[in-house]
């Protein structure tokens, strides 16, 4: 355990919240300490306050923030997690958009995509649903804060727990084995997915307003402070065109938190439709 006072922890966690919107509840210091200890050792720093000073003032602080994101962001994900969302998109939302998609691609943002399992899962499901055969196109933008995870996403090679919800037949069909226990996603499911580095808590997200039909931001907001949560939902309200949809993780809800979205029920799950007005 890193020696630190309550004030030191608060200074650091407030900074993480300010910078990334991530909320570290009290009592999670031990987890955070385990992730930070290697950084303190690498920088030859004695304590948490010195590390806080480094992040606040050192000329190399931006590089350190990048290093920090690799350690503190939660990367837990796997293929076809919460599959009811994908069913809702392929079975209800795409058909409802109808002819509109004859003239332009379906635009999806996978926010906080980690190592890419979520956008690739959607790509597989959209392909399997026969959209290409029907002459429909789609583009999936996928962003994350962690450059290492994005690198993994671009390489599209996975193993072990990433397939915990994938049946063998799907894995055999969509991936090719490159080493014992390691599988690479086939090119046809990769080409419509573009990855980019982005901090969801930053003032600018680098994408245009009204750009997306669907945003997936699942199991990320639980780590955000209430204020950062509200800011991001307001940003999503700008990024999704009216009538578009937002999907959150099953433990996250917009209940009583946004006037820009209305809840919509789908089989076994729910999403939020961007209203024409509000927000």
């Amino acid at each position, binding site marked *: 355990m890193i020696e630190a006072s309550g004030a030191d922890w608060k200074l650091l966690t407030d900074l993480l919240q300010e910078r990334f919107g991530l909320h570290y509840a009290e009592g999670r210091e031990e987890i955070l300490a385990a992730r930070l200890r290697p950084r303190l050792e690498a920088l030859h720093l004695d304590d948490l306050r010195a590390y806080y*000073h480094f992040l606040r003032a050192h000329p190399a602080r931006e590089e350190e923030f990048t290093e920090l994101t690799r350690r503190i962001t939660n990367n837990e994900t796997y293929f076809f997690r919460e599959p009811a969302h994908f069913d809702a998109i392929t079975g209800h939302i795409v058909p409802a958009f109808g002819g509109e998609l004859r003239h332009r691609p379906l635009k999806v943002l996978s926010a906080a995509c980690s190592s890419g399992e979520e956008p690739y899962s959607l790509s597989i499901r959209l392909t399997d649903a026969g959209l290409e055969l029907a002459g429909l196109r789609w583009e999936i933008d996928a962003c994350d804060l962690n450059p290492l995870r994005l690198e993994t996403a671009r390489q599209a090679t996975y193993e072990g727990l990433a397939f915990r919800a994938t049946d063998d037949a799907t894995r055999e069909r969509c991936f090719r084995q490159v080493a014992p226990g390691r599988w690479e996603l086939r090119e046809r499911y990769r080409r419509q997915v573009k990855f980019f580095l982005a901090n969801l808590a930053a003032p600018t997200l680098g994408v245009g307003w009204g750009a997306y039909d669907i945003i997936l931001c699942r199991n990320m907001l639980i780590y955000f402070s209430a204020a950062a949560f509200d800011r991001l939902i307001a940003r999503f309200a700008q990024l999704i065109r009216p009538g578009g949809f937002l999907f959150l993780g099953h433990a996250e809800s917009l209940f009583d938190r946004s006037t820009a979205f209305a809840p919509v029920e789908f089989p076994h799950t729910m999403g939020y439709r961007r209203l024409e007005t509000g927000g």
Partner: protein
Amino acid sequence: MTRTPAFLSSRLEALSHPAERSLRDALIIEALGDPSPAVRDVAVAWAARCLEPGELLPCMADDADAVLRNAALAALERQGPYAVEAVGRLTSDPDPDVAMFACQVLGGIGSVEATPALLVALARPEVNLRQAAAEAAGRLRARDAVPALISLMEREPWLQLAAVDALGAIGDERAVEPLLALVPGSFVAAPALDALRRIGSTAPLARLLPLLTAREHAALRVPLIRAIGGCLRDAAPSAELLALGRELEGEHGTDSAWRLLADRLSGEDDDPDATPAAPDDRARLRGGGISARGAGAIALAAGVASLHPLLIRRATDADWAAWIVPLARRFGVPAGAAATALLSHGDPEVRAGTLRVVPAAAIGASRLLALLADADEIVRVAALDAVGELADDATAPALGERVGSAVAAERAAAARALARLSDPAVAAELAAPLAEGAPEAATIAALSVLRHHRVAQLDDRVLALVRAPSPALRRAALRAAAVIPGSPAEVVLFRALADRDAAVQVEALELLVGHGGPRVRATLLAMLGVADSLRYHVIRALGRLGAVESAAPLETLFGTAPLHEQLEILTALERIGNARSREFLAECLTHSHVEIRRAAAQGLASLAGADDMALLHQLATSSDWVLRSEAARACGRLQLPAGRPLLLDLVRDLEPVVARTARAALAGSP
């Protein structure tokens, strides 16, 4: 008018002028009863800060408005030690509900000063009140309440339950016999067992062991496993334990105690333990839950050999090993043929765990050396560590060979083991990896041996490697060179300060700080004049060395240094800690940059003495919570009666971190 938390905060902030106090207090009381929890949270913080306990006490009697009463109770609890005296008086209030709420608040505050007030409540006839007092006594860990709590165990069931839980929390051995009397026949047998576990005395073992295998008490087996595990913490081998072991081995059926122990040991998680019973249990959850630890302790202490593979494989994890290894060695298991069998077990984790658990001398060098060829890396590394435990020069060739291993963990373990051998043995084995043209990884591993075990005849080679082309090699060589006495090593460390690789420079600086001495200090002082990236580290090094002569140059540099160096300078001055540094830090309290003011306050809080109460008062009344927190920290460090009023004010701070720091300081203040 909408009353959001933000609006309420700003309104209350605006009413901070003394002339508006009554308006502000009325607004706080009104907001305490607000239907919105978020608004009430803000009101509770302000009530704790601004209202006297006496102003909140009337709300406790308010039967008509439970919302207001609960908010007032929360505010009193948040006031902590500041409210203890006033709330304590209420435990003798004629209204038993008021006295009961008072007990709840005192339990939440957790200050042992409240014990006399709780004893008053424990002696009253009202059952609900006594129950609340018992619960509070447990939260306070009030040893003075033990006799009163024991007397409650003859009373109504819910009083028994509260008393049993409190006695477990207090952990006083006086409670052992009364608690044992409740096992196995009473309805509070399971809580009583949990209390016995937390007390951790060996006394109950003789009575508890036979119950574990008794079919008629099968429902109590999980609490029994946990309790026996707790009682075995300091136990010695005994005939009763061995008898239990034989009995457990005799019945492996589905409903047997053996099966339950096996389940507890093989479970990936320990569900019934997911919520620790007490804060002190929380840290113990790493390395197995309470049930798993209990089952493991029984398996070892009673010598249940059939369960050993399940347990010993866990010893490959450091957190599990931390309790399994000492316990296994205390009870001398596994040993002899059983240990030999485990070393040939099909599961590599069992083989590796056995190597961690069984003393190396008991396994023997030849068997250990054979295990260095095991198919599994985890076993080979454990075998290398065990070979190191032998500290036998005859093993040197085998260890030397592994220093050149392709597996990093094996190289490191071999280096650790070699470092424990004699000089000639180390010298003989390191000649090859230190030779020109040896693989870099092997040379680095060899240098890591010499970092912990200097061999004089290899000094020249180490000093030569400091000029190696690879930065990683140079860093490893510098670490080994730092343990060489005399000036040649100092010279290479000084030269490395000008290395072309920044990481090597910093490494050299760190090693020089370890060396210390006037030459190092003079060199570092001279380096303050060079404005490069190393200066940040030089400043810190001077602070670590406590170089008093650097105080004046550091202060001079402060005026032109960039912010990150300024912050390091303040930290260095805190470490130097002379009167001049203290004065400079005090001047920085008015600096325009908030982080400078905070770093200065941190330094002053570390240096303040008994004559600095005015300064601490200045910090305590700052608008910046960090400065207030530093004031609380300083008062806690000084433990002066003069600091108590400041702490009693800070304990009600709006910023919870400040309040907690003050509360911790008060817990140790006179």
